[in-house]
């Protein structure tokens, strides 16, 4: 690749060891504190997307299994969890946080093997943040009386939680920690392509002596999820995933009295003004769209650059993209790992083809992709119109669309010109402009001179068709309590 003065500047491979991970050949469902076989005995393979090879066989829960799991959760709620003093619930959650920290390397490697994300991200972001989330909400469990003015917080009962494949353990933590802190019990359904860290978490929950049935984990497919949502024993549904599935769940729950929170898609604008620090901006844009291969609902997938600096920014971006390392997710130097599944790779490929067909100009750096597995190079489109599919539809891949604007008003109009409203980025050195823009963004999270920052104390969630309800912070308790006068 790149040579300067005769020195080879390419990085030597730096593979993370898979030794900490002990995979079983087959996994059952976690119900009532036990690993059990699915009633119908159905199994499905989970695949390492970096190799295409199966890692293990996973149980596929059907309606009968879901029924057992909900019954176990109900029994655990009525049998003591709801009446346990908050201070005791807190201690269980602190234990879980500590156990996750102790086994962090094992979780990180397993997350990368099952989901394809770079080990640098699973090691430095996913797993530490998951542990932090349990630690944060542990502290709320005995302080709920201080969380809500003039109201007492009562638990709801059994929460059904359905999570996506892009941050498997982290999403499990985001769902479980506040639900348990507030005194609910849970049936959690991991995504079909990334069940392994949730199943390893089951081991952690057992090691923490969490009472049987407080958390139940049912792996499976769409049928499993539908059975869980429709189960009459469920009091609350929390879903993170696509907007279309969110619509279907909303319709299914209509008139049932079950509570619902949704964290759905996004098509975030990342807005760059001409006075911004452009080298810092370049790093921010790259982090905004190529973090986790762009498989992030809040990804900064629409770059809005002020016209006067558009060529400069695109040039800097292309030079930076040339240095991104795409490949083995277990290599500690990898920037962009594997796409989560063949189906997701197909969707990305199809949308990229539509961008070319509709007349946008595609740039991808000259990089060699691994021969096996599901990979997509970082991609950048210029000459994009607001009507193009690539600037309207959520791609969920490493694909950036560049649009331009002249005035701040035009930037606001273009940024909000989407049915979504999850996140937005603003880059400028002018403080008053940041606040003026932030006020006008129809988005739940606004990153100014930064992007893709997450914290257990910071609420996350969207406006409009990006869903409703927040996860993180005090606001993240509200979906899991009934406020009583």
């Amino acid at each position: 690749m790149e040579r300067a003065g005769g020195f080879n500047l390419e990085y030597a491979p730096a593979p993370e060891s898979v030794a900490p991970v002990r995979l079983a050949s087959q996994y059952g469902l976690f119900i009532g504190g036990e690993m059990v076989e699915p009633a119908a005995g159905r199994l499905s393979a989970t695949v390492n997307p970096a190799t295409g090879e199966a890692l293990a066989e996973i149980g596929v829960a059907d309606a009968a299994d879901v029924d057992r799991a909900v019954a176990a959760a109900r029994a655990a709620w009525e049998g003591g969890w709801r009446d346990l003093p908050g201070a005791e619930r807190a201690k269980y959650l602190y234990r879980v946080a500590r156990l996750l920290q102790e086994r962090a390397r094992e979780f990180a490697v397993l997350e990368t093997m099952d989901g394809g994300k770079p080990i640098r991200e699973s090691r430095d972001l996913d797993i530490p943040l998951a542990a932090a989330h349990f630690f944060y909400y542990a502290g709320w469990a005995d302080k709920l009386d201080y969380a809500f003015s003039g109201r007492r917080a009562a638990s709801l009962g059994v929460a059904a939680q359905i999570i996506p494949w892009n941050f498997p353990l982290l999403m499990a933590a985001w769902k479980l920690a506040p639900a348990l802190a507030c005194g609910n019990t849970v049936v959690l359904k991991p995504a079909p392509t990334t069940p392994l860290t949730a199943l390893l978490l089951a081991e952690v929950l057992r090691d923490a002596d969490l009472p049987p049935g407080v958390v139940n984990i049912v792996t499976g497919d769409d049928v499993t999820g539908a059975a869980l949502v429709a189960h009459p024993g469920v009091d609350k549904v929390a879903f993170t995933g696509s907007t279309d599935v969110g619509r279907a769940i909303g319709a299914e729950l209509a008139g049932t009295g079950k509570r619902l929170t949704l964290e759905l898609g996004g098509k975030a604008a990342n807005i760059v003004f001409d006075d911004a620090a452009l080298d810092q901006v370049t790093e921010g844009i790259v982090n905004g769209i190529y973090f986790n291969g762009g498989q992030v609902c809040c990804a900064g997938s629409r770059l809005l650059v002020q016209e006067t600096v558009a060529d400069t920014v695109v040039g800097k971006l292309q030079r930076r993209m040339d240095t991104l390392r795409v490949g083995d997710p277990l290599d500690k130097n990898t920037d962009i790992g594997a796409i989560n599944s063949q189906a997701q790779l197909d969707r990305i490929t199809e949308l990229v083809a539509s961008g070319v067909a509709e007349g946008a100009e595609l740039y991808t750096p000259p990089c060699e992709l691994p021969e096996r597995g599901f990979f997509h190079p970082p991609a950048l489109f210029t000459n994009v119109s607001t009507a193009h599919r690539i600037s309207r539809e959520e791609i969920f891949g490493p694909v950036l669309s560049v649009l331009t604007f002249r005035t701040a008003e035009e930037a606001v109009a273009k940024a909000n010109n989407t049915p979504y409203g999850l996140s937005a980025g603003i880059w400028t050195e002018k403080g008053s402009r940041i606040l003026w823009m932030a006020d006008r963004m129809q988005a739940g999270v606004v990153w100014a001179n930064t992007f893709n920052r997450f914290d257990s104390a910071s609420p996350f969630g969207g406006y409009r068709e990006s869903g409703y309800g927040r996860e993180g912070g005090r606001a993240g308790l509200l979906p899991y309590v009934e406020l009583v006068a």
Partner: protein
Amino acid sequence: MSSRLSVNKTYKQFVGGAFERSESGRSYPVSGAGGQLLAHAVQGSRKDVRDGVAAARSAQTGWAARTAYNRAQILYRVAEVMESRRDEFCAEVLRAGDGQSEEAAAKEVAGAIDRWVWYAGWADKFATVLGGANPVAGPYFNLSVPEPTGVVGIVAADEPPLIPLVSRLAPVIVSGNTAVVLASERCPLVAITLAETLALSDVPGGVVNIITGRRDELAPPLAGHGAVDALDLSGCGPDLGADAARQAAATITRVVSASAAERQWAEEAAQSPYLIDAFCETKTVWHPKGR
């Protein structure tokens, strides 16, 4: 000598700050507690609902951009104007209602006025109570603030005639939302009298739009309207509520309904800052700290 012939009021819908008949030209008879005819109320149409949403949409940005202090004063002004017309409200509630006593009617009106005063005071406080700084694990400024979600559709409970409507409307608009209200189907007239006080209280046109008519016909299109951001379906029965919620799901619109405690309309439990929050979006802003 004959007594003076009274001048009867025509009760029209309230859309975009104007009192209008339905584009459909329909009306329906409204009778009082004793079965006597009180008036013919407008029987609004789907088109009227759409017009109400359009008026609410165009008023929303301006209303939200008012200072919190200004919205507080306007809501307080609503209480002032209602207080000055208290006898009229009492008489109207008594006429419309389900045979409640004079004392009960007076209590309902007083409760409704006091509810405006209570929510008026929240305008410049709820963000302090519901939002705040988040101590993130890194060198970042991080602040969460509740913002109005936009346009809210409200299906008012049928009875009593006044206080349920006020109890659900005030927390919606205090934060900067605008509203499209389907008034009580059985007792719609007092909602229009309320609209008159709103019009006299510097509430900008379009902030509150009140449609009268058949709930079964109008709630589903209101719920399914793409420009409606949240719904309060407190006035829908189980079947209609389910139907409206299905319409709402298609556009990812959240649905709120009054709890049993909140239906003790005259009680303190019927008012809460968390009712304001239910129609807000939490926005969180990050910025790095550095030299």
